[in-house]
């Protein structure tokens, strides 16, 4: 009975968030002069078509990887806003190295993955080192490092250095990776699914395994649960924080691969900034759980995809950003309220039990 109520409470949070988001969406649409009912149904119908769903999953893959990267940091209360710079720098390095060598496919892909992991980890390690050795707040240092990464890439990606400019094109890119370094798409009746979905699944599984089945994962969870307890138990906080930053960066290094290996095969001006906030939000939605983050990434991508239709009905699709913020905020509030409700429930149960023994 108590267990059932617990499960109901757990589901109550997302349900409440979804409901609130729906109400806000309807209100904003009405304020913009659109009919909320038909507009939302139209967006939903578009979003749920098989073709769109495949596109949603494709879009969710980098979000998921960014979410896992953020989740790794979250366990130690490290907010890795540098996912942005780490992923772009890693994608850039990967594209340059990947296009510079000719290798048989398995070796080529292994090299590419290796470069991505190392480049992301190395860039994040700077922030990790500054945090551990000099106490520099990770949010601040990673934001600054993002700006540095942007400048470095811009400098290296000029046609005089590592960039290429096709005639008639205005998009400066790196050289193209040879076909041995491509990952083929998975054909489905509703369109091509990016093959890197398997990489995302692998990263998620690896994250779950390390977190739940290894000593270091245990240490991280302990540290996240209670810093004092962890220190008393002899866990070395700084070492753990540094490793978490590096690991977060390594996973962030993978974020660009779906686009790089699955579609564009070169790094260019079209690798967007701003994935760090998406990653953090998605990790929050998924409560750092490998499956939960996947759901979060899917929801995020679904909202953004289905919002495309709004433009056609003359509504700014930026209401999606409002919705995303509302969902994150209401879900964290709801989780907190649920936690309090549970604590109260437990207290009452204990009190009852105690009363029972007294009587």
């Amino acid at each position, binding site marked *: 009975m108590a267990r059932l109520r617990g499960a109901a409470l757990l589901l109550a949070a997302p349900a409440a968030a979804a409901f609130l988001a729906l109400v806000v969406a309807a209100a904003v649409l009405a304020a913009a002069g659109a009919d909320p009912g038909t507009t939302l149904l139209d967006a939903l119908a578009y979003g749920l078509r098989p073709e769109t769903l495949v596109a949603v999953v494709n879009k969710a893959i980098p979000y998921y990887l960014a979410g896992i990267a953020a989740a790794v940091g979250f366990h130690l209360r490290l907010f890795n806003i540098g996912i942005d710079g780490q992923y772009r720098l890693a994608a850039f390095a990967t594209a340059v190295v990947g296009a510079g060598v000719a290798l048989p496919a398995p070796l080529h892909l292994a090299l590419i993955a290796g470069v991505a992991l190392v480049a992301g980890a190395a860039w994040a390690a700077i922030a990790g080192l*500054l945090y551990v050795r000099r106490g520099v*707040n990770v949010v*601040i240092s990673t*934001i600054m490092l993002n*700006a540095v990464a*942007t400048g470095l890439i811009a400098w290296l990606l000029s046609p005089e250095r590592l960039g290429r400019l096709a005639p008639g094109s205005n998009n400066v890119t790196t050289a193209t990776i040879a076909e041995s370094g491509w990952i083929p798409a998975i054909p489905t009746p509703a369109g091509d699914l990016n093959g890197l979905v398997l990489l995302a699944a692998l990263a998620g599984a690896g994250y779950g395994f390390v977190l739940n089945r290894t000593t270091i994962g245990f240490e991280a969870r302990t540290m996240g649960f209670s810093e004092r307890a962890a220190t008393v138990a002899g866990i070395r906080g700084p070492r753990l924080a540094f490793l978490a930053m590096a690991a977060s960066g390594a996973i962030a290094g993978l974020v660009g691969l779906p686009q790089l290996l699955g579609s564009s095969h070169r790094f260019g001006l079209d690798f967007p900034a701003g994935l760090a906030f998406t990653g953090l939000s998605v990790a929050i939605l998924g409560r750092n759980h490998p499956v939960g983050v996947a759901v979060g990434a899917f929801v995020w991508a679904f909202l953004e995809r289905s919002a495309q239709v709004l433009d056609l009905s003359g509504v700014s699709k*930026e209401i999606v*950003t409002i919705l995303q913020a509302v969902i*994150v905020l209401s879900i*964290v509030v709801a989780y907190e309220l649920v936690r309090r409700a549970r604590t109260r429930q437990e207290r009452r149960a204990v009190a009852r039990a105690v009363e029972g023994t007294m009587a």
Partner: protein
Amino acid sequence: MSTPVSISTRLAGPVVRVVLGFAVLSLLSGAFEAPDLFSRGGISATLRFAAPILLAGLGALWAERSGVINLGLEGMMIAGTWFGAWAAIEWGIGPGLVAGIGAGVAFGLLLGLLTVTFGVDQAISGLSLGLLAAGLTRFLSSVTFAGVPGGSITTSPPVPDIATVSMPGAEALIGPAEAAGIPVLSDAAAVVLGLVTDVSLLTIGVVALVPATWYVLWRTRLGLRIRAVGEAPEAADSLGVRPWRYRYLALAVSGGLAGLGGFYLVTVASSLYREGQTAGRGFIGLATVIFGNWNPWSVTLGSLIFGFTDALRTRQEVTVGVLLAGLGLLFAWLALRRGLACDWRGGLLFGIPAIVMLVWFWVERIVPSELVSFAPHLTTLVVLALARQRLRPPAALGTPFDRG
């Protein structure tokens, strides 16, 4: 500590260092033809670049002194830019000022609701507010600015100006020294003139907020209570100071300051609202609080350093090369000191970057504009990494207070 002697000794060190650093940079700029390093225009641009960061920094200071990390500053600034611009266009500067501050206060109170009342993680709440502000403002632009001439979904029509003033007599008194071309002295005159001529009224107001913040937080009972809540909320609570009340208050002030920073951006630093205008200034303000050791005077210094670098790279890229040389000399000096103290690791830590910077400057003389673009951020990072030893954040920073 309170005797005049000890105060002057305490001040002597930094003053000597600042004067020395200024003289070295001034000579370098003369030698390598980078006249803009200390020019009147450059200094007045520094003020304009520093003021919004200073406001964000002061906002962060209020919040952090009460124990809340305000990662929502960026969002509050965004709200300040949009609502400030919108109201200023509709009704004029005064209402714009009120709306900008008001929007910031509203977001501050929302952050209070989340972190104080609901006890949600401070970082998550703050970052989500940034998301909310970005979405909200673009949506609002689409229903207001998008249809008007000169406006679009990302831009507002022009916002009215704020008047500028000059200190009477300054030009006549110091102007000749600026024009005389004497090494160091003329640069010093230019700095003074940059600070006192053609200054926006709003800038003066912003500068006044620094002593005001210091006075309220350190010299009034209210400030004492806010700081107490940031250090030891349980203890404060047991003495009848209700933490939640003071945290709400501090967050409202924090948001108001950030909102004012947004209003500054749309009026003084430019003359319209533009999406993405805040460009991370809220976060940079947060950084100034950390290396400013949670004290308003150092926060001011931090924002000036950032504003100065930002102004330089925007106005004349060649000056960044000179700045690099100056930084190289500073590092070389630090390396030398470490080396003399037989701290080889420290010597290398400073020595290698010093050599890289000086060699680069010697060979290239200029820094490519792509690399110049992150000069302010790199400066912030270096200052943060060097300045840490004496820092002490409020003890209860980041921890929610559970009323039980």
